[in-house]
């Protein structure tokens, strides 16, 4: 325990320093992180990170995919404080957009990306408009149902393949056949001869770079959003929705916006996933994915982007790294989550304010079940609130 405390103390000090660091310190660090991500598929890294399976496959999905999904779910759960248990639905909608438009209608990947994002965002609005008057656990149950509905509809709709899904989804067109020159330092890393913009069936690394690009763009978008009036409104809604409305925040509109943006990011992930997967089936989009992504967000530190990314990485990578343990790895994974939540309920890298919110029992996830107020005219809360 003492060493754990020492570690967390150091982490806290580093974060304090980082929070006040000027741009000339920050930008080189960002550049180094991107460089690190670019050489991540290297053989030497892969042989340690995943000795028993193909590292670059893993990097694309689940690792990259989970990270992007977790960033999207974090908008809904971590920033706006809405518990969404059916997030996989938007991932599925993105993937099916890619499959249907690409395979059946012959669209180009780059044209499907914006369309898939819009379809997913629209479905987020369609789900959100009637349900966002619900709060806390009520909302969780409805979103859980939505996730299942999407999967079951896909399974029972023969025109999109039913339970067999859609196969033969086209890959993105090759942008350029340019290859990384096979000289040092690239050849030493095993990256020599790699064609990063040629999307074929065998090499996952170009898809990984595509996912990485999407992650970087989405991070910039989400961070800027969070620092704007929108981000402040979300924080207020998360911490006390009634008080937020009293401050003049159009809470319903902003909750809907959080849903739509989260859904759009889920849809984007789905389109990219579909473009590599060649075939998708409804079984790829089970509740387990929603649960894992939510676990990633909570484990890493809901509301804090670096934490969420770390959480998604661990959730995606740990079960693969310990494949040797066979089915027991899931057991250990569950055990690790339970221990984690017992010792550090705010997540690995929580934000300061998240800690304060948890102590108050607010903040969406933190207040799960603790929230009494409900939707307008909801009979369940009558007893609790008439006493006012």
């Amino acid at each position, binding site marked *: 325990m003492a060493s754990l405390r020492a570690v967390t103390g150091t982490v806290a000090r580093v974060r304090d320093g980082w929070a006040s660091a000027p741009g000339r310190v920050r930008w080189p660090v960002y550049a180094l992180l991107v460089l690190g991500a670019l050489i991540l598929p290297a053989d030497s890294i892969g042989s340690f990170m995943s000795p028993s399976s193909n590292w670059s496959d893993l990097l694309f999905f689940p690792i990259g995919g989970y990270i992007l999904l977790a960033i999207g779910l974090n908008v809904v759960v971590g920033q706006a404080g809405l518990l969404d248990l059916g997030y996989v639905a938007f991932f599925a909608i993105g993937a099916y957009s890619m499959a249907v438009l690409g395979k059946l209608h012959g669209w180009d990947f780059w044209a499907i990306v914006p369309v898939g994002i819009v379809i997913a965002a629209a479905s987020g609005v369609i789900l959100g408009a009637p349900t966002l008057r619900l709060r806390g656990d009520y909302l969780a149950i409805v979103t859980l149902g939505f996730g299942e509905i999407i999967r079951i509809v896909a399974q029972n709709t023969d025109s999109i393949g039913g339970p067999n899904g859609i196969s033969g989804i086209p890959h993105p067109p090759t942008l350029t056949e340019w290859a990384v020159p096979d000289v040092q330092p690239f050849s030493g890393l095993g990256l020599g001869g790699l064609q990063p913009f040629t999307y074929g069936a065998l090499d996952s690394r170009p898809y990984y770079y595509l996912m990485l690009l999407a992650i970087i763009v989405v991070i910039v978008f989400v961070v800027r959003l969070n620092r704007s009036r929108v981000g402040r409104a979300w*924080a207020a809604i998360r*911490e*006390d929705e009634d008080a937020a409305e009293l*401050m003049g*925040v*159009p809470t319903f509109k902003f909750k809907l916006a959080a849903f739509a943006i989260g859904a759009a990011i889920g849809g984007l992930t789905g389109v990219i996933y579909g473009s590599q997967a060649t075939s998708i089936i409804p079984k790829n989009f089970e509740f387990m994915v929603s649960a894992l992504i939510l676990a990633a967000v909570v484990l890493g530190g809901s509301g804090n982007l670096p934490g969420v990314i770390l959480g998604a990485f661990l959730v995606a990578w740990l079960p693969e790294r310990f494949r040797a343990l066979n089915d027991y790895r899931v057991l250990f994974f569950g055990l690790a989550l339970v221990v984690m939540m017992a010792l550090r309920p705010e997540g690995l890298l929580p934000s300061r304010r998240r800690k304060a919110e948890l102590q108050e029992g607010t903040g969406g996830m933190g207040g799960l079940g603790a929230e009494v107020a409900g939707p307008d*005219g909801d009979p369940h809360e009558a007893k609790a*609130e*008439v006493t*006012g």
Partner: protein
Amino acid sequence: MLLEVEDVHVHYGKIAAIRGLSIEVAEGEIVTLIGANGAGKTTTLKTISGLRPLSRGRIRFDGRDISRMPGHKRVLAGIGQSPEGRGVFPGMTVADNLAMGAYARRGDTAKELAEVYELFPRLAERKGQMGGTMSGGEQQMLAIGRALMARPKVLLLDEPSMGLAPMLVQQIFSIIEEINRRGTTVLLVEQNAAQALQIAHRAYVLETGRIVKSAPAAELLDDPQVRAAYLGGGTDVAEAEQPGEA
């Protein structure tokens, strides 16, 4: 009249919480709404500020019918509220909480901020502290200060004395009087009827969703029924009256 509530009914599901309530608040007044637990005091305030839809009746504010106006727009119309349980944003600093108070307004808020810090010097000392880590009294000050940031015409206060030490209650109530003296109309909901009646101009007594009495506050302080029910003076009154009758 600045605020007129006319025959308002509010339901939670099928249960009626407010049944035909009418109150009026004139500009510059402190009006208090007293009543027991469950009488519908908080629901009344929530309906005025737009957190609760009304099922019948009408609310007029500043000459406009606002019955169907969403809550976030009523802030700009001039209704500010310090909600029940204070509703301070726990993860935001005092300064950020106050900035949220001015969320709906664009433009410079330095003047309002200075005024809030002047009314509550304690908040000025704790600008950087997280709202959730403050004491109950400080949170109440923050909730009132935050509502003032929107420069409301009427300030709705829901149980500002709840859970506070007697010394602090005194302090909060004298600040409410000061806010009123500076020109803000106040509608105060209180269980602590004795305190509320001392600073209010007029008062309404609310029982199970209906107004059962309305009078100048000073009169209610002496009303035997009100004393018996809300001021804990039941036995006193009985003893005082018996010799008179005998």
